[in-house]
């Protein structure tokens, strides 16, 4: 017979165990616990429901075998990249969005967090908590579809306004009387501002809702820069600013989303043109580094005062000298650029001083598919 206090403490242990089991079962998200080798020790009712797994099918099984996973975009994920394996390797919690592959071959998108179970300072297993995000993804898809459609609808009348005002200004419908030229130019400028606003607002909506669709392929960074320079040459010519591109000796290939990359470059280069006085130069340089491609946009413009360096990527911020120079502007351009760079897993930074020009650097990883990789600086 056990002494009185030993019996009391074993009853206490049983109570604590029952309580922890009850807590585990009551977690509103799916939860699976494993031992230190990744064999499943517990699976809660929500996990059973999401995965269609019975406890007897799961318990004692090696987690990666009973529940294979793939990336969110349905491409395969190597075992070494699997969050639970990463967690065991690093000892740190890992959060990710993946798809679990179910018994019947279908898959379910989930947001998971896997953490170590530490007992007496020693890791004794893992707990993976997950949430079915099918509905969230559907809402994201609808949001992104709405944004895309709204962008189209807002721009359709604007395209007509812009095309016809330019045609009037260019004399397609007969010569203009001298006093008519300036007002027409005002209409064109206003239409351009409106266009920029639509772009910026749509980009912000996309960035903030995380609904930017990324489609990656291999591109030569020099070619992307060339395409953007072609787009902006007319603007640069009109302002009397020279665009100079220093090409790398060999192609600087990277796997990225060309449309987003070009938007980043177009924003930086047009900013450089906008804040560079006539006869100034904007120089674009591409450097091929080990894991990334670095693009530098250097201008001989008004520069950014040192005291506002930390605010330059903030939403709606415009440097005081920029406001003096150019009254039109939203203070959203660099905020958007930073969001787009982050979307491509890249980095952005700058060097500048007032009246001494600015250089903006963007570093994009050569392979933007791997989210863990950081760009070289």
């Amino acid at each position: 017979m056990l002494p009185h206090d030993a019996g009391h403490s074993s009853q206490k242990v049983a109570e604590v165990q029952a309580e922890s089991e009850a807590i585990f079962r009551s977690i509103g998200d799916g939860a699976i616990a494993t031992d230190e080798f990744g064999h499943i020790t517990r699976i809660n009712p929500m996990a059973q429901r999401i995965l269609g797994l019975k406890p007897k099918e799961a318990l004692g099984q090696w987690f990666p075998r009973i529940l294979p996973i793939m990336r969110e975009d349905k491409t395969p994920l190597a075992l070494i990249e699997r969050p639970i394996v990463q967690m065991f390797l690093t000892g740190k919690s890992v959060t990710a969005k993946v798809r679990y592959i179910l018994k019947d071959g279908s898959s379910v998108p989930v947001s998971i967090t896997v953490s170590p179970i530490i007992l007496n300072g020693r890791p004794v297993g893992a707990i993976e908590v997950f949430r079915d995000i099918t509905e969230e993804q559907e809402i994201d898809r609808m949001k992104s579809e709405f944004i895309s459609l709204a962008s189209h609808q807002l721009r359709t009348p604007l395209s007509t306004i812009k095309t016809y005002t330019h045609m009037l200004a260019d004399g397609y419908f007969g010569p203009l009387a001298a006093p008519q030229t300036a007002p027409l130019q005002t209409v064109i400028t206003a239409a351009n501002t409106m266009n920029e606003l639509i772009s910026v607002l749509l980009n912000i909506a996309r960035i903030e809702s995380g609904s930017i669709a990324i489609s990656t392929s291999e591109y030569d960074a020099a070619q992307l820069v060339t395409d953007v320079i072609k787009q902006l040459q007319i603007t640069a010519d009109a302002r009397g600013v020279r665009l100079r591109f220093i090409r790398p000796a060999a192609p600087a290939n990277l796997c990225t989303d060309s449309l987003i990359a070009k938007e980043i470059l177009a924003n930086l280069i047009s900013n450089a043109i906008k804040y560079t006085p006539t006869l100034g130069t904007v120089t674009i340089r591409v450097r091929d580094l080990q894991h990334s491609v670095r693009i530098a946009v250097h201008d001989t413009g008004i520069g950014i005062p040192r005291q506002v360096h930390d605010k330059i990527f903030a939403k709606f911020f415009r440097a005081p000298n920029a406001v003096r120079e150019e009254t039109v502007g939203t203070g959203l351009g660099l905020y958007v650029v930073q969001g787009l760079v982050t979307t491509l897993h890249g980095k952005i930074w700058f060097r500048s001083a007032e009246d001494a020009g600015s250089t903006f650097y963007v570093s994009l990883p050569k392979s933007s598919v791997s989210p863990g990789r950081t760009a070289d600086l």
Partner: protein
Amino acid sequence: MARILIVEDDRDLNAAYQIILNRAGHTVASALNGEQALRTAKDFQPDLILLDLLMPVMGGLAFLQAYDLDEHTDVKVVIFTNMENSPEVTQAYNLGVTRCIIKSWTAPQNLMRVVDDVLQSH
């Protein structure tokens, strides 16, 4: 000078592009949707197609699938759309288009420049 087919459902814009490209010396035909464009392209034999994406009856992507650029290797297609960074644009590139430009950013001068660039890359 080239033979250019404009496929654009907005009649005002369609008319404007015809004026601009005609003035630049090109021979121009026009269609208001993909289905009309398929019929027109047969006889007109364009060197370049200026193609909108969102159109009634048959949109730009459906047109590209039906027209099949692999069958018309000497024809260049420039997408002219207001859908920026959209999956449709990516799909259009996958179907073999040469360039994609945003209508609301494009003044007549830019339009002519793009057309010349694409034609020179022949």
